[in-house]
């Protein structure tokens, strides 16, 4: 019980420590700020959780997110029809990448690490071709679409609400549906799952579609928020997402993990990044500290598990 909620305990302790060190930290404005900053990583990481629990890595999410951002901007969404087109195209893109990944890994059972590194390159190359390696931007974005990135509902930024909706939906799907049980079973023991009638190939396929679509949604939020982006944006984001998912206790071997853990992992990373910024630590050293945190968190988890077992 405690171990499953370890990440929340860690989060609580870190928040207390930072609050003691910096009075600005717990101001409502700063909290909203943190939540907005983590919303993009959160959506991507929740998506990645699905294939990972089903026993497969998706390293193509960063490139997919980048492509979706570029497409959403390049469609020049200035009025309702072009905004709809932009959203549909960006979303379709993530779903297509998900289908290709899922088809290769689920149906043909190729190694997921190598396959998604391959599709990552393909998607990245496609992004570069599409943009001719040039910066893309849009002026006068359709206001309703812009609201997806910059709007507020009451005190809450829209991206935070999208993250909350994704988290609730993801949690429900993973815990209260037959598909969610299939995902766990496929990752836990693929052969046993198959023998008991689970279509493991289709389960993995759908898990990859979820992760591709989530990456697209994150890309759309970014497009709506910044409205201009470099074509190599998003590369490397898969590692950030993986860090969050692993911090949240999802097993790399599959079969074990949760959306709530992933959300906690994302929160922890966001809180630490925010605290380091408040303490004036440069971005570069933040990167270094992030690496240390990842190692310590996973080491702690492994040690705790071996002591018990």
């Amino acid at each position, binding site marked *: 019980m405690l171990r499953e909620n370890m990440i929340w305990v860690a989060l609580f302790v870190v928040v207390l420590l930072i609050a003691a060190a910096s009075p600005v930290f717990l101001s409502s404005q700063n909290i909203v700020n943190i939540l907005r900053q983590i919303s993009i990583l959160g959506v991507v990481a929740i998506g990645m959780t699905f294939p990972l629990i089903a026993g497969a890595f998706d390293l193509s999410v960063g490139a997919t997110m980048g492509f979706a951002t570029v497409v959403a901007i390049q469609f020049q969404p200035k009025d309702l029809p072009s905004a709809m087109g932009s959203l549909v195209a960006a979303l379709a893109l993530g779903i297509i990448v998900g289908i290709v990944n899922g088809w290769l890994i689920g149906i043909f059972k*190729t190694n997921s690490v*190598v396959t998604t590194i391959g599709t990552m390159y*393909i998607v990245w*190359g496609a992004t570069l071709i599409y943009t001719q390696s040039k910066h893309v931007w849009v002026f006068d974005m359709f206001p309703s679409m812009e609201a997806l990135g910059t709007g507020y509902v009451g005190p809450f930024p829209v991206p935070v609400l999208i993250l909350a909706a994704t988290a609730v939906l993801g949690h429900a799907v993973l815990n209260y549906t037959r598909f969610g049980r299939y995902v766990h079973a496929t990752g836990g023991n693929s052969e046993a799952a198959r023998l008991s009638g689970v279509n493991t190939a289709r389960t993995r396929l759908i898990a990859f579609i979820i992760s591709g679509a989530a990456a697209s949604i994150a890309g759309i939020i970014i497009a709506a928020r910044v409205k201009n982006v470099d074509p190599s944006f998003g590369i490397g984001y898969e590692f950030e997402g993986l860090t969050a998912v692993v911090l949240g206790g999802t097993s790399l071997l599959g079969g074990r993990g949760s959306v709530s853990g992933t959300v906690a992992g994302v929160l922890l990373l966001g809180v630490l990044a925010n605290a380091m910024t408040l303490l004036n630590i440069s971005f570069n050293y933040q*990167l270094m500290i992030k*690496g*240390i945190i990842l*190692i310590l968190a*996973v080491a702690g988890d492994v040690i705790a598990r071996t002591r018990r077992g």
Partner: protein
Amino acid sequence: MRHWNWVRIILHQRVLIVLVGVVLLGAFISPEFMTASNFQNVQIQLATDGIIAVGMTFVIISGGFDLSVGSVLALAGLTAVGLQSSLGTPAGLVLALLMGVVVGLVNGFLVTKIGINPFIATLGTMTLVRGLALGVTDTKPISGVDENFATLATLPVLGIPLAGLIFLAVLVIGFHVLTSTVIGRHIYAVGGNLEASWLSGIKIDAYRVGTYVLTSFLAALSGVLLASRINTGSPVVGRDTPLTVISAVLLGGTNMVGGSGSLIGTLEGVLVLGVLNNEMDLMGVADYYQTIIRGALLVLVVLFDRFYIVRLARRAA
């Protein structure tokens, strides 16, 4: 049956066949391709990734994985160049290589003693070392001040640039160790079945730590050579390195699961990727198509291997 043998030969030597095709294509398409200067150019470019690929082959055969090589490559170059003015070039070189060994020890410790998944452990050290490289330099490159260092990588020894010669030496020694020594057999055993290896008295942790130290050391060596070639230590180089190197190793038929693979295959993989890149550069193919082709090649190879294995299994059954 004769017919089948041919098919099998083609299947077995598929990377070599692709390589021959790629080279022939280059010879036909670009007049510069077969020139001596281009040959030397390719050699130096290949050496950077190739040296690391030898180490990566060891790690993957022993059942591990190392994502930190690109960061180590960058930090080693920075160390070698950055310490020239204060400690002198030789001390800088030694410390750069030593840094590689230390990162390898940390990787090995995390994977064997703590039991962290190699993917995550080396992802952690990758981030950590990259942050360190970016942090100490404030994201700015450092220029070399020693002329001797600047010519080190291209220094002709027996008519071959030093970087190429080192790659060859590393490859030959690695090949000998893997194929003809007890150490090599144990590395295959450890990757094939860890539990069984331990039960038969092999010092499994020593071998696993050893492969990480070797890879990290070679990554540092490669970083030093790269820094020498461009006479600059840059904190941003090598972001692509782990993926390129791992692609080459897997292209060469080494299995991700561990226990099988060969350096001949890795050499073929490195050559295919390197020659293909060179050709596309010569032909003026834009970077972005190169990225796509690299990805497609990787997907095709895993897919092909999958069908090949399935077919072999069916034939055996």
